[in-house]
């Protein structure tokens, strides 16, 4: 970057070539008023930021510095002009409340420049039809920030400028009310609005504002929480590298759970003689009694000792929450492995993206996404497969939509119609479970056409010849037959992916939650290797992680056989190093995955489980079997922030602090970026951070991990795992989020993996096979039930259901069915039917919806009223033991009305 010399308010200063005058001034601590300035986008509509440059008035927010500029930010002419502009605004400006006026920068500047602020007129006409937002047009100054926020940054495209001329204003959709509009409540317009014209309902000023990382999905948005009297009163987007100020509805309006009176505030011990299982309306205190930490921890420690004595360490397993921090998860795995001596530890990845992590690690080296999210803006072709990202990862979807609007070829592959398709060039409504066929046929066609990257393949890969030979069956005709996608479209999509490079593939759980999830992922990896779409900007393989720290959970070694930093438990050299640092004997057996542990508990092989922040009864397949397993345990510890359906089976329930808002530590987002979580509020009652609890328990078992705080833990993580070698809390505080690998202090982190080759030497093509559903199953269970998610809810809704705002955005406990299927089954919209799967049956309400194609049903696992996972057989991926949530075969039985 070049430097230029300019004179700023009489002083010669150095400016960075290409920066704006506003930026320069801010760096030198000079304040220039701004209204329409929107970081990252050139707006330049309000002109309030004018400064005098060589005798001319220039808007400083969009004017770039150049050599020899003489800049006067406070010249009489600049100030006079600002005052004229402010007067013009104030003539057309009123507020509805004192709070709204507090939010208004026009009024703030009015006071600063000696003018009257706008009047407060409580009876001005406002639009309060939205559940969470009020729009007061009379306060709007048409700065158009909300239009940028909604239409260019978030790309929700709800707000637009209406009309032309002096009367230009903003409106929603076809100029309807906000509440009636297609608004998805991301809140970006509210966060952007400089006047309070768009504002949260019931907003109050905060005593303090604290920035942390969002507790929800794996995007890793930075959030600022407003705190008043020790409670979170609002949230707004902060400018982090992954979100650049954006949030989704969960981040923006989903903070209420923190303040919830339902939080567990004291350790609870099951009263003697009360059987495990659903409370069924009984108050908690009838089933559990409150205890002190000492009492609860002593009890757990003695139980652990007892079970160890009776059965040995293999009888104990632990499932850790990926909503927790890296530090806590690290402490957990060390505690389990050293203080107890078991390797049966797991995190939620097994239930979601482990097939991605496994295939990526096996074929490329690291089990993680290769590129930064924002890099999709550099892609020319984007394939989004098995992902309803507009709902599950709205902020990531914002970048994908922006890329498409800027001209990238966006291709969507999904059995059900998703909102993102509006932005796509091609929407491939694939038959469920046939992804391998589609991508293998694309590969074969690319090879036939000679479009593959020969250089890349010979330089960086192995196994190419073997793999080619395995593609024989995947002709276009076969693919058309099996996937139901016309072969001309397959050809065109293959052409775009191979020739319009760089090309990126993004996927979510539609790829992984199948029995052949690892094969699906490998099909994508093979395709990327074939075309050289790895290790470059705008290219890459992007699994989108669903939980705030599911990436981190795997990174810090909370998985059987895998020590922190992806080091093998069975490698003698690795064991030696860890045993030295941890001063313990590591387990000598490789443990089990969470899905296996549940099964082993049911079969009486595992006697004790320690479940942290996972609502296993509802999130694991075959809920009946899970319930049976949990009931059979000799001892179950559940540590959570709420009394979940799983905690109802516990012997001891421990109150945890919320990792994102009540603890200090780090989360690793879906792009491998470690970001800080900070203590926004104190944990309620006696709730404690997870790492503290594990440290205390270990001590009671005679094992001192030596952690006084989470920074101690981070220091240890960077010591034992090279990929984190250069990371520390201090550094992340200073520099912001950093993407691993960052092996030393000097390493800036690694935004793009494999830019200089592959850690395992060569990347590997993996030969994969495919087999269809057998005809008997297909005829007995003609429908594929896909269990997914929706925008305003999160997993089993333990957190989101506490927000009164998210609650009104529920789509509800329904199962969507195609209109033709409904007609054929003789069903009406809203009718209750019985869904029968090979393992269970469920009474559900259906909704007729053209979003799903024939033969496919869709529902979510959010609702306590609809335990969809109860229908899912525990059919697991043989490698990662991931359940097939996206591929449950069911039939519909009409209920006979009496």
């Amino acid at each position, binding site marked *: 970057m070049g430097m230029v010399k300019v004179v700023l308010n009489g002083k010669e200063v150095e400016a960075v070539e290409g920066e704006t005058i506003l930026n320069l001034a801010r760096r030198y601590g000079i304040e220039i008023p701004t209204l329409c300035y929107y970081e990252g986008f*050139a707006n*330049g*509509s*309000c*002109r*309030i930021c*004018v400064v005098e440059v060589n005798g*001319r*008035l220039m*808007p400083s927010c*969009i004017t*770039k510095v150049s050599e020899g500029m003489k800049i006067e930010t406070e010249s009489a002419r600049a100030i*006079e*002009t600002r005052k*004229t*502009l402010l007067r*013009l*605004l104030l*003539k*057309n400006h009123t507020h509805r409340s004192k709070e709204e006026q507090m939010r208004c920068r026009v009024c703030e500047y009015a006071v600063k420049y000696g003018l009257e602020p706008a009047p407060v007129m409580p009876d001005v006409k406002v639009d309060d039809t939205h559940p969470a937002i009020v729009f007061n047009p009379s306060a709007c*100054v*048409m*700065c*158009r920030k909300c239009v940028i926020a909604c*239409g260019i940054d978030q790309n929700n*495209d*709800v*707000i*637009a*400028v*209406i*009309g*032309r*001329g*002096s*009367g*230009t204003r903003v*409106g*929603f*959709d*076809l*100029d309807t009310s906000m509440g009636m509009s*297609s608004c998805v409540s991301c809140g970006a317009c509210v966060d952007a609005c400089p006047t309070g014209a768009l504002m949260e309902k019931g907003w109050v000023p905060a005593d303090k504002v604290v920035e942390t990382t969002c507790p929800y999905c794996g995007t890793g948005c930075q959030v600022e929480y407003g705190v008043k009297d020790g409670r979170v009163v609002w949230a707004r987007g902060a400018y982090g590298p992954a979100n650049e100020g954006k949030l989704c509805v969960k981040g923006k309006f989903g903070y209420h759970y923190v303040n919830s009176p339902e939080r567990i505030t004291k350790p609870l011990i099951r009263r003697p003689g009360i059987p495990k299982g659903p409370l069924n309306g009984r108050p908690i205190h009838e089933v559990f009694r409150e205890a002190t930490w000492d009492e609860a921890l002593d009890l757990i420690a003695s139980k652990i000792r007892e079970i160890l004595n009776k059965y040995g360490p293999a009888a104990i397993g632990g499932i850790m929450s990926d909503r927790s921090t890296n530090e806590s998860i690290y402490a957990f795995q060390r505690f389990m492995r050293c203080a107890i001596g078991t390797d049966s530890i797991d995190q939620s990845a097994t239930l979601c993206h482990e097939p991605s992590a496994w295939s990526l690690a096996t074929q490329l080296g690291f089990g993680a996404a290769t590129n930064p999210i924002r890099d999709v803006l550099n892609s020319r072709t984007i394939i989004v497969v098995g992902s309803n990202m507009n709902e599950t990862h709205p902020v990531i979807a914002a970048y994908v939509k922006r890329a*498409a*609007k*800027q*001209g990238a*070829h*966006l291709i969507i592959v999904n059995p059900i119609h998703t909102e993102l*398709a*509006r*932005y*796509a*060039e091609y929407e491939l409504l694939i038959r469920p479970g046939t992804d391998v066929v589609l991508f293998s046929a694309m590969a074969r066609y690319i090879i036939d056409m000679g479009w593959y990257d020969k250089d890349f393949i010979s330089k960086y890969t192995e196994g190419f010849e073997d793999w080619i030979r395995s593609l024989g069956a995947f002709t276009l005709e076969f693919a058309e037959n099996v996937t139901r996608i016309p072969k001309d479209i397959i050809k065109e999509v293959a052409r775009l992916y191979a020739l319009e490079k760089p090309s990126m593939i993004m996927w979510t759980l539609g790829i992984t939650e199948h029995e052949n999830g690892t094969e699906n992922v490998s099909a994508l990896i093979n395709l990327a290797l074939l075309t050289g779409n790895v290790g470059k900007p705008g290219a890459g393989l992007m699994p989108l992680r669903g939980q705030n720290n599911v990436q981190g959970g795997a990174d810090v070694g909370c998985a059987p056989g895998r020590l922190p930093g992806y080091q093998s438990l069975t490698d003698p050299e690795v064991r030696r190093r860890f045993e030295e640092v941890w001063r313990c004997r590591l387990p000598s057996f490789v443990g089990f995955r969470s899905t296996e542990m549940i099964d082993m508990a049911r079969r009486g092989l595992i006697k004790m489980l320690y479940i942290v922040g996972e609502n296993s009864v509802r999130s694991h397949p075959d809920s009946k079997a899970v319930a049976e397993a949990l009931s059979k345990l000799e001892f179950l510890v559940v540590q959570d922030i709420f009394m979940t359906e799983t905690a109802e089976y516990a012997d001891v329930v421990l109150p945890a602090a919320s990792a994102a808002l009540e603890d200090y530590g780090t989360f690793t987002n879906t792009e491998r970026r470690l970001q800080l979580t900070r203590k926004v509020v104190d944990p309620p009652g006696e709730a404690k951070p997870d790492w503290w609890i594990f440290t205390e328990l270990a001590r009671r078992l005679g094992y001192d991990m030596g952690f006084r705080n989470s920074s101690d833990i981070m220091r240890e993580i960077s010591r034992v795992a090279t990929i984190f070698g250069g990371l520390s809390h201090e550094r992340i505080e200073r520099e912001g989020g950093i993407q691993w690998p960052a092996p030393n202090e000097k390493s800036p982190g690694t935004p793009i993996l494999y830019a200089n080759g592959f850690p395992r030497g060569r990347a590997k093509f993996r030969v994969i096979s495919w087999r269809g559903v057998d005809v008997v199953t297909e005829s007995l269970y003609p429908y594929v039930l896909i269990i997914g998610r929706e925008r305003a809810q999160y997993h089993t809704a333990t957190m989101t259901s506490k927000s009164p705002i998210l609650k009104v955005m529920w789509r509800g406990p329904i199962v969507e069915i195609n209109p033709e299927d409904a007609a054929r089954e003789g069903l009406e919209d809203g009718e209750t039917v019985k869904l029968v799967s090979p393992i269970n049956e469920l009474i559900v309400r259906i909704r007729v919806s053209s979003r799903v194609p024939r033969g496919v049903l869709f529902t979510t696992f959010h609702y306590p009223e609809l335990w969809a996972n109860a229908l899912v057989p525990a059919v697991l991926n043989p490698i990662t033991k991931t359940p097939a949530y996206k591929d449950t075969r069911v039939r519909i039985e009409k209920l006979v009305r009496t």
Partner: protein
Amino acid sequence: MDYRARLREASKEIIERRIVSDDELKKIADKYGLPLSTVKTLSTFYFHDYSEVQVCMGLPCLLKGAREAVKELERRGIKYSITYCLGYCNRGPVVRMGDKYYTFINDEFREIEESRNDYVQSQYEPLDRYITRGGYKYFEKFLSENNKLFILELLVKVGLLGGGALSRFKTLASSANRPKYLIVNGHEGEPGGFKDRLIMERNTHQMLEGALLLSLALNVDEVIIAVNERFRNAKAMIEKALSELGQYLTSKGLLNKLPSITVSLVGSPYIVGEETALINSLEGNRGEPRLRPPDPTEAGLFGKPTAVINVEVVAAVPILLGNYYEGKEAVIEKYFCITGDVDRPGLYREKLTVGLDELLAKAGVKEDIKAVFVGGISSGLVHSSKIRVRLIPEETRKLGVFLGPGVIIALSNNRCIVDVMLEVERFFSHESCGRCEPCRLGTKELVDVLERISAGKASEEDLKWAESVARTMMETSLCGLGMSAGKVFLDALTQFRDEFEEHIKGVCRAGIHFR
């Protein structure tokens, strides 16, 4: 289709079919898979204040009695809306009813003959006729020139192109960033302007040859002729000419050596004629100006280098090329559209050495002239004492006016300057794209103040305030529209301050406001 292509198609359809109803917009959104807000923002931008019957309130029409036309429509109970510049300014006051254009004379609405398709067809110059008068004579010769940039220099020499534009165009010609575009600006939204429309309708082939020559000089890949949605006849003529031309070029084996030429309708609002707004409109967005830098020659249509050149300028190129090869001096006759208080409003062609006063005399200006808008109401107001100037660039620059649109509107002494400026600012306020604050609110404020002055309710303070608003508009607006709106107000205020002050005291010389 990808998103951008769908957006472009939808925008085209909205403009071509003048879609305003929500039901129809919903169908468009469905058809092209676009957000509702996107079709709404386009429709309300292009057809803000739209109805089937529209009365032009452009200054030339106003001076010829547009207010009477409005009264008549109201008397007849016909629903109408106000618009600016329907393109037949010498036949004002003009009223559009559906696709027909009328003038209001002697209490009746009479269809304007020149606006009829059959009439326009009859005026068309077919390719063979164009060739007999010298068309395409030097085309192949030019094609074989190594350095083709000299025709740009010729344009500068005759005053049709500025020096700044020349150097930007040269950079564009040598840029490797492809595809590159030439957009011929056939928008002509300036009230009082009708030359570009006439050139497109009548000298169609000359313009197309000019476009091809320029496209070669500028080394672009695609030529787009952007025609104001209101000039449907012009578009039809261009399409006709393009098909003739296609055959001709094929027969000469030239077609594949030349960039493609297409014609595209763009929305009619005045601001769309601004070059970056024009680009936005062609991309399928609201036709609002873009921030500069970057200049379109660096990043224009779809972010690619783009030259935007006016129809008249383009059409001049074959003539200049002829002059050049025939060793004649490069001279050009500029088109002037003269309206207002003159006996013979219409189109005039003169060398730039002509005096403004001479030109006005030709059009039959009356003795009692008060002032003249030279270059249109967005260029500048010139006091009658200053009209003895020649229209060469050096002298017009001193006057602070820009001749490009060739619009000349004369005001006689019977006109009240306050009244004229009120209508001028109403125009800007109506036609502002609404993007930047100084223009969006400044134009409205000037209208408010002028209304108060007209009503005799203004004070000296108001004048000062209006002056500072106008100055702020001129100095801080994002594009030329807001700047002009401020500038012409200051032109009027500085040259006719006495009349403004008289109004404050309750006196209107012209006897319009207070009698």
